[in-house]
């Protein structure tokens, strides 16, 4: 990575442990890495390896015991709650395993919410929603509620929602974990194309090697330690 370019994400000496009875269990120890803008990085690990904890620390929804997380040069660990809320609102998009769409909002309204929160005008919102729905292949489903969509469709809406406000960083937690193999594969393809087109930075947390293969770089998380796979996988 070019040293003069600000990293989209920089993690330095991150550590986290939890109390278990009288003892503390270390979940993450001295984790450091950087992600350049537009890069896709996969965090690969088994259940309980600490990868979800790492994702929470990256999003600023959990506090580390040691180290620092910087997003677009801003230290997340030093931020107060209001600043973190603003950071998430403007610079981060999330994709969850269980989609987490707002069940009482239509597809278009779910997509509109991040834009409204960022103060976008109605015309801009309509334009962007139409553009994203076209890209995720859900033209004509604007008025549908989440419970009227299949799992794959819901995850496509969730992907569109994560990038609709053009965040600097998208965090995806097992994005295909709740889908069948075929649908998961299609969603993965969509994710790869979309991120290549839009140039977003993506951090992908997964236990699936197939999912990790869409990434530029892969980090393995094992017993709280991070190691980079030397073998680079390209799209």
């Amino acid at each position, binding site marked *: 990575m070019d040293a003069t370019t600000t990293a989209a994400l920089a993690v330095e000496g991150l550590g986290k442990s939890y109390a278990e009875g009288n003892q503390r269990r270390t979940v993450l120890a001295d984790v450091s890495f950087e992600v350049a803008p537009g890069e896709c990085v996969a965090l690969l690990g088994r259940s309980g390896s600490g990868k979800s904890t790492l994702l929470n620390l990256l999003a600023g*929804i959990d506090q580390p015991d040691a180290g620092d997380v910087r997003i677009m040069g801003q230290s997340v660990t030093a931020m107060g709650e209001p600043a973190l809320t603003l950071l998430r609102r403007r610079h981060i998009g999330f994709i969850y395993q269980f*989609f987490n769409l*707002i069940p009482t909002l239509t597809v278009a309204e779910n997509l509109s919410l991040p834009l409204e929160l960022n103060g976008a005008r109605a015309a801009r919102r309509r334009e962007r929603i139409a553009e994203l729905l076209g890209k995720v292949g859900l033209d004509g489903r604007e008025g549908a509620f989440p419970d009227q969509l299949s799992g794959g469709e819901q995850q496509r809406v969730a992907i569109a929602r994560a990038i609709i406000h053009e965040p600097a960083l998208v965090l995806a937690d097992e994005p295909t974990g709740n889908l069948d193999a075929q649908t998961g594969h299609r969603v993965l393809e969509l994710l790869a194309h979309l991120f290549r087109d839009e140039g977003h930075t993506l951090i992908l947390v997964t236990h699936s090697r197939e999912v990790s293969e869409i990434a530029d770089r892969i980090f393995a998380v094992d017993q709280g330690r991070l190691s980079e796979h030397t073998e680079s996988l390209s799209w």
Partner: protein
Amino acid sequence: MVPNAHWSIPLLPAALIAASRRYLTRHPWQTWLSIVGIALGVAVVIAVDLANESARRGFRLSVEQVAGPATHQIESADGRIPVAIYARLRLDHRLRLATPVIEAPVRIGERSITLLGLDLIAAAPMRPALLAGAWAGNAAGPDGAVDLAATLIRLLSKPDTLLLSATDAAAVGAERGDPIEVEIGRDAVAMHVAGVLPDQQGQTFGGLAIADIATAQAVLGTPDSVERIDLILTDAEATRLAAALPEGLRLATTAQRTNALAQMTRAFHTNLTAMSLLALLVGGYIVYNTMTFAVLQRRSLLGTLRMQGVTRAQLFALVLAEALVLAAAGALLGVLTGIAVGAGLVQLVTRTINDVYFQLNVRSLHLDWLSLSKGIGLGIGVTLLAALGPALEAARSQPRDVIRRTLVEQRGRRLLPWLAAGGVAVILLGLVLIPLSGRSMTWGFAALFLVIVGASLCMPLVVRLIAALTTPLFGGLFGSVGRLAARGITASITRSGLAVAALAVAVAATVGVGIMIGSFRASVSDWLEHTLSSDIYIATDDGGGAGSDASLPTGLHQRLLALPGVEAVSRGRSRRVETPDGHMRLLALTSSTGQPRGFEFRGEPAPELWARWRAGELVLVSEPYAYRQQVGVGDRLRLFSTAGWRSFEIGAVFQDYGSDSGTVILPLELYAELWNDTGVSSMGLVLADDTDPARAEAAVQTLAASLSPPASVQTNRGIRELSLEIFDRTFTITEVLRLLAIGVAFVGILSALMALELERSKDYAVLRATGMTRGQLRRLILLQTSLMGIAAGVLAIPLGVAMGDLLIQVINLRSFGWRMPLQVTPGTLVSGVLLAWIAAVIAGLYPALRAARAAPARALREE
């Protein structure tokens, strides 16, 4: 990046509002039950307030009707002013604007009416509206001819004529010139309608029958005296006249008199308001419960919103906005219901005032905008206040809640002991507040509220313990379904604990009010038992009450003693007297044994009480008077007698539930001397042990019937039954309020349990998918709601008893000055548990049927 991201961001983006709106419309049961809960709370407050305000307005109008524009009244200590004195005062002081007055409660047909006797010529310049009304309504005679003078001449010259209001005349079916029967006490007098007073704008004569003073004197049997003299005076004239009045007469301002009368019912109104606030409190708790549910149910959703950058302030505003919408809808519904219920309550309130205090001529519902605004404001205010906690809870939502769904429940479980500890602290604060708050009703009510809140904070932990302890029992009785039912409560304790607490608080409120009424009734019954120490009572035909002037015939005492089996006869005179602080009841007694019996003293009486009482050195005062005036043994009390103001030392304070304005007891001889009244209005007969009570009563009845006018006879048991009947009538309104509180409670639990059970649809789908039959699932849900209902009922008992105790020892005492022991009947407690159980089972029926009907695949897919 999104362009112009720095633009001002609305507090609530449209998408958030849409999400909220659809949440409410997608949970119609929950939304409607919340609205109905708020509506019932608002309705109770508005209904009671409207009834109270209508009664107060009725009182004000009744007083204005009777007093007219008079600024002052001349009153006498014995309620009688000789006509000769009136004539002399009028001449000596050139009282141009003055009229003698007699008023008495009468019945015409089914209507209670005040007969008002006035000197119509003297009253004409003082009451132009009345006389203008009279002429306006009677300008045309039956033949269409102008008949002004004829009406006046008829009223003045015919001794049996009166004017009726158009409303009353229509109600009794009488027209001008028609004969009518006027019931005065137990007598019926034949009279004629000389004219009909029309209801004019701003002036109504409803409930009033106006006669010339001479007519009133004749029909009421007081030919030589009037009750008072109404005057219009300047301040200077008033000062001169007051100084010149003969002994036994005093000049009072109309405002003083009105205040003294208003004071009599103030406690009654305050108590009603307190009861309505209790209903609102239960309603408020249910709103709190509903809003908390709405937040807990959407915890994961709120976490998602936080992940997307929704701020704490926005979530806080969202929950409050939802509450505001519910409150507005509930308040609107509550206003309409409140007006309808208020129309019924005003009849109960005025009936109680007529039974216990004085006659109200105006008894219609008056739509007071202030009452409506107060109800709406309270409903919305309480709802927003109740929603504050859940709104803060929503604002505290962490983005990580979305990732770990079980986190909320785990955190909730960890919080339970702290909540319970906080609850104990809040209860203690409430208990400390009671002695510190002196006699304040507001702080007394605040203490009650703290106890309720504190107890409800302890309940989730206790519910968890109950569920854990009953799991083996349910497992043993119902197998795995039973175990699942009990464990389901602990698994979702943040919500099930809240639902049980809401039901328990609501049931406790009804148990508490039930205990209060039961204790009061039992105390009154015990008090009547020991106070009514004679076997048979004989009284003047009008009952010999405080408003009565009639006397039993001289010599009756000896005639009664001569009857076979009569061992002793005691005599009494009851009347209303003036004190510097308003009216109170005076009871003058003489006893067959020389020492009145049946008194239960509060605290230590003065030494040699009875001897000094008989000597006229001491008087006894009732507990409500002593409590209100903060006086006790050794203090002094001033009474206005025919000999002017007299001061008496208090020798003892006695238990008395007969009058909340206070009673003073004097020896009959002292009363006769100071009030210049040797009359006796009631006598008590003690029968010899071997006497047949029925035969003795028959003999007394025969003697009473032979008197002129006849006297009324009641046995000890008869008086007790009649008194308890009046008591029950007085508390009808409290019972109505209790029923409304039960309604609020039921709506609340229905809302909470339904929300809880519907929320578990997915768990039930999993059970169905793993092979549970529809019947087993129905049984599981009903077992679970049954257990929650029983837990709520069990928890409601100690809280209900505590509430009953606080209502008795704090609210009732501070309202009326009555002390009474707490009496808890097993029936009240059992009915409380049953109420909770039935409410919970009914609330579980719909979710049970719904869950059993639901296709598991669909429920599993719905997230």
